[in-house]
């Protein structure tokens, strides 16, 4: 029997795919605002939501959505007030949320095991109605994140400038927070509340290693998120590992693979940066003797523009051929 013959696996894969697409889409905006850990904060608050669901007998997914949205709005308000720095505000809410969740779950008579399903995910126990909730909410998040990308980009890039353009900055920052809250709850079943922030942030960090622009960053991050989610579920099916942890470790493996590439790319771009061409920088020493090596388009040495000619850089110095000698810059 193959993997797709199990209906629970089909549901798991569908949930993983949509979560994997939505989480990095929102995560990109959070990283842009330098609030990478916001997803984690909301995840902690959502624990209280789960506890309330267990206590009142409602579906924990919906109580978690509501509490997470309230928490996200609260974080935004604390941040906007500005008298508590962003990370301290997040820390306060982290611990309040998780302590509240453990307390309320205890009151509801739930065990550590019940809570564990939400903390670390239980994607293979996703029911049919859960799948539709996850797919529906994730689709809305993806639509908003892509559809309002120009506005969200502007607001996350420079709030004050966005305000002077007449954008309703508050609406968009709240929208980002609410999207983050919804994504956290959606991803609760896939990777769990404690790991959801990883799926929001790690693909973005990986994508940043080689992307130069925002559009490329967000799309590559979504692609990476989806492939590590789906890949993680498939892997965990065959090796019988915890799906949530496998997904996150796959995403991290992607980052580890991309990191050296990123360092190399940035190094190469810096080396290829043209040298400034002010009058002073064009001064040079004439090196009369022959060089013993003819520089050319494919000699392997770094060629860098310098005004009207090309300098070649090697062994810590740069020079250009000039007639029968070299000009040392």
């Amino acid at each position, binding site marked *: 029997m193959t993997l797709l013959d199990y209906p629970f696996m089909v549901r798991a894969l569908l949930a993983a795919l949509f979560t994997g697409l939505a989480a990095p889409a929102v995560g*990109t905006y959070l*990283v*842009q*605002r*330098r609030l*990478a850990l916001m997803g984690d904060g909301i995840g902690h608050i959502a624990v209280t939501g789960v506890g309330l669901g267990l206590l009142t007998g409602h579906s924990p997914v919906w109580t978690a959505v509501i509490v997470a949205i309230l928490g996200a709005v609260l974080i935004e308000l604390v*941040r906007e007030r*500005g008298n508590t*720095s*962003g990370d301290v505000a997040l820390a306060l809410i982290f611990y309040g949320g998780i302590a509240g969740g453990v307390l309320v779950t205890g009151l509801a008579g739930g065990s550590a095991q019940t809570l564990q399903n939400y903390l670390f995910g239980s994607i293979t126990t996703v029911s049919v109605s859960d799948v539709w909730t996850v797919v529906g909410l994730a689709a809305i998040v993806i639509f908003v994140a892509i*559809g*309002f990308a*120009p*506005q969200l*980009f*502007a607001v*996350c*890039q*420079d*709030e*004050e*400038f*966005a*305000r*002077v*353009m*007449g*954008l309703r900055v508050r609406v968009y920052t709240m929208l980002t927070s609410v999207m983050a809250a919804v994504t956290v709850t959606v991803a609760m079943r896939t990777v769990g509340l404690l790991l959801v922030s990883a799926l929001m942030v790690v693909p*973005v960090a990986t994508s*940043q290693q080689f*992307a*130069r*622009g*925002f*559009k490329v*960053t*967000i799309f590559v991050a979504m692609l990476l998120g989806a492939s590590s989610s789906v890949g993680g579920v498939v892997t965990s099916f065959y090796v019988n590992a915890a799906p949530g942890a496998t997904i996150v470790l796959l995403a991290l493996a992607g980052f580890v693979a991309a990191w050296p590439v990123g360092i190399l790319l940035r190094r190469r*771009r810096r080396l290829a*940066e043209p040298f400034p061409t*002010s009058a002073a920088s064009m001064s040079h020493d004439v090196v009369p003797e022959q060089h013993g090596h003819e520089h050319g388009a494919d000699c392997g040495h770094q060629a860098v523009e310098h005004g009207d000619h090309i300098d070649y850089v090697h062994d810590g110095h740069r020079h250009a051929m000039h007639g029968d000698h070299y000009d040392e810059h």
Partner: protein
Amino acid sequence: MLMNSATRSPVITVQAGNVALGGRPILRGIDLAVGRGEVVAVLGANGSGKSTLVRALMGLSPWTSGDVRLFDTPLSRFRDWRRVGYVPQRVTASSGVPATVAEVVASGRLSRRRALRPMSSTDKAAVRAAIAAVELSDRAHDAVGQLSGGQQQRVLIARALAAEPELFVLDEPNAGVDHHNQVGLADTLRPMVATGTTVLLVLHDLGPLAPLIDRAVAVRDGRIVYDGPPPDDDSLEEFHDHHHPTRESDHIPMRSGWDL
């Protein structure tokens, strides 16, 4: 050419304006009128309130009293922000995620775009023209984070230009920018001024922009203490509260990563 601002159609008017931040009065009894096509420099020492004045005019700091109008509309009811291009005081144009020059400049076009619609060819042309105006066309698809400080400042100027504003407001555009880029800013502004764009800039010293400036307004201790023809650079020190021993070292703007 100095023309009485009362004879021109008003772009900025402030009467008896007061600004307080957190209950602490910053600007007091501000009277200011800027007419269409004027180029006005706001001068003053650090902490004099000159940046607060511009930020308050942009609606970023609240006026506690006074009659403040943009294009003859009370600031609180002003919605026509596409007519305004704002260059905030920043050290960098980059954020937590890489963005290309073209992407950052395109964001300046949003005041003219509707949500959920793609950029029109007019929008794209305006973005290209704005990038060309600051001479960054060859860097359009590079990450802004990789540009020099002066080039990043030019990106912010292009972003404001993309909306094709009638009023162009720049907060210390020359802070921490080398002479070469200051000359570049003057070159960018000259054709705009020639076509009647109104310009309000906060400056520490006039530098290469001096020939463009019609009028100077000096702010000291939150009050306007001078409003008239621009001073020559030698007498500029009189506008500052104190003499700076090292003039270059003290106006490097602070960076607040969280923009709290």
